[in-house]
């Protein structure tokens, strides 16, 4: 027996001995009672404690977005999808305008408000929620953790046996999120749950298509939510295959309740995007007539602000036209006067600026930008600038 063969045998025995506990199969939860921590193996307890710490950290950092009405609505959706786990799957929103959702191994499901803002109806949300819940129920986090450990072990052992490139590939795969198999498993399980509740399953295809179109428009190469998922196209095909095999389910879409319950969240996301100067996102969303109906009338103001921030050729004229449109449609909408005043001031139309600023102060004497408006108004008045126009 040559030296290389001996090394390989030693390596394989080491893997076996070191990973003995990994021979215990991972069984999914069947019901809520299975999720009692006292029933967990040490490995499962470790994942659960990690999840608890993550919950606490997100709360401490102030990352959670609080909207009790919306939260109750979304919680109800997941409870209807998985009644056997009612009380165990907990929905929380994160203050982030990007498209993402994830589940932790203690049943916490986090959704970025950016994703909630992009989704069009309840059936689409159910697709995402249903999928994330499976990661918890089928213990995908635990499986991923084992894969990672195995990859590390294999890497260690292969290096001892003189392996080379294989350990790096295994490590990368295991670190890049759930495997394609697990993602497909999550989609399939969620599909059947949605079918049972009576959702229109074509919305599952629609939500992936929409997110894919948006990722392309924003030039996101690997959409955050799907950075470790099978490519969106493949997910769309996979969902279509499930529909072809099992039917398209019921006809419940839930567009209007969804729009109503998440209206405040959509506006919060617009605000957040503008605050972070993600103006392109605001323009893409609000320039689409299909999206526009999901936003309140004064959302035109946000579009104007996005053009102002972008400041490309023609944008400032667009912004002006939109400010005037908002004022025409909503004469008491104070922020439009403030922005109009800033526009006129920057363009040295001091008389018009003065008029707009004065109007703002009348409508919103305690408004968010009162000090700036007052400051510019004082500059106009103290320097006699308005008389020069």
């Amino acid at each position, binding site marked *: 027996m040559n030296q290389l063969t001996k090394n390989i045998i030693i390596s394989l025995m080491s893997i076996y001995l070191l990973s003995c506990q990994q021979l215990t199969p991972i069984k999914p939860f069947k019901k809520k009672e299975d999720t009692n921590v006292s029933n967990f193996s040490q490995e499962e307890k470790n994942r659960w404690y990690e999840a608890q710490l993550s919950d606490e950290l997100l709360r*401490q*950092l*102030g*990352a959670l977005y609080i909207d009790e009405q919306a939260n109750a609505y979304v919680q109800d959706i997941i409870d209807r999808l998985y009644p056997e786990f009612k009380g165990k799957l907990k929905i929380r929103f994160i203050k982030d305008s990007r498209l993402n959702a994830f589940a932790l191994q203690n049943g916490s499901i986090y959704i970025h408000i950016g994703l909630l803002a992009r989704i069009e109806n309840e059936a689409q949300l159910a697709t995402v929620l249903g999928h994330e819940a499976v990661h918890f129920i089928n213990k995908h986090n635990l499986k991923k953790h084992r894969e990672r450990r195995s990859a590390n072990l294999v890497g260690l052992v292969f290096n001892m046996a003189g392996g080379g490139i294989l350990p790096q590939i295994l490590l990368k795969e295991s670190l890049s999120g759930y495997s394609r198999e697990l993602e497909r498993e999550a989609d399939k399980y969620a599909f059947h749950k949605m079918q049972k509740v009576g959702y229109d399953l074509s919305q599952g295809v629609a939500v992936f298509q929409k997110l894919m179109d948006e990722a392309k428009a924003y030039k996101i190469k690997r959409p955050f939510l799907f950075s470790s998922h099978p490519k969106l196209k493949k997910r769309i095909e996979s969902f279509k295959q499930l529909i072809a095999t099992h039917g398209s389910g019921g006809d419940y879409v839930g567009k209007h309740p969804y729009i109503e319950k998440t209206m405040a969240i959509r506006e919060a996301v617009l605000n957040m995007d503008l605050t*972070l*100067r993600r103006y392109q996102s605001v323009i893409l969303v609000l320039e689409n007539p299909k999206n526009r109906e999901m936003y309140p009338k004064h959302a035109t103001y946000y579009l104007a602000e996005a053009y102002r*921030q*972008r400041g490309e050729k023609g944008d400032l004229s667009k912004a002006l036209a939109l400010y005037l449109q908002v004022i025409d449609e909503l004469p008491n909408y104070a922020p439009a006067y403030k922005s109009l005043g800033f526009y006129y001031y920057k363009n040295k139309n001091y008389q018009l600026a003065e008029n707009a600023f004065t109007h703002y102060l009348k409508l919103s004497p305690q408004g968010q930008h009162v000090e*700036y408006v007052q400051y510019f108004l004082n500059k106009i008045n103290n320097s006699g600038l308005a008389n020069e126009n």
Partner: protein
Amino acid sequence: MKINTIKVFLLLFLATNLTGCLSNWVKPKDKQMNSPGKRFTIVLPDGWIRYVPDRRAITLTKDGLNVNKMRFGYYSYSKLFKPMKNKPNAKSNNYELSEYLIALLGKFGDTRFAEVIENRPALINGIEGYRVLISYRDEDGLRLYRLIYAFGAKQGLYYAIYQAPLLHYFERDLPSFTQTINSLKIAKE
């Protein structure tokens, strides 16, 4: 011979450490301090010391950087707002500059989930600028306040930052910060 050389080095090392020559913290004799690049000067407030390794700005603390700190500096627009596609310029007014700064704070690090409590025009020793107050929590849930004064120049931004836990420290040391802000003098553009 060898052992004597080692002893000498050890003695020198101990001597320099004990005398603080290698210390990161300095209480300058002259209270008036020049910024890096000699762009401006400030007067050191009582009880505060300077953190020397920060070569980009004047960083001061009283009870430790994790407790309270002030930072005074200058950044070119291109450097400070490098992550952003559009950057401010000499024509940007203070309202626009404040928007850029708030966007930068919200994009990265520990201020990602910060709340803007205040954003308004302000004077920095007679120079027109703006003031932004944000509140955020660290990983332990401790609420911190960060107060930023800034004003724009032709190619960059002058800034002054004061940060401390809301509990006890922020209000206690705010007068020192205000006093230091009011001592700021621009040396060159």
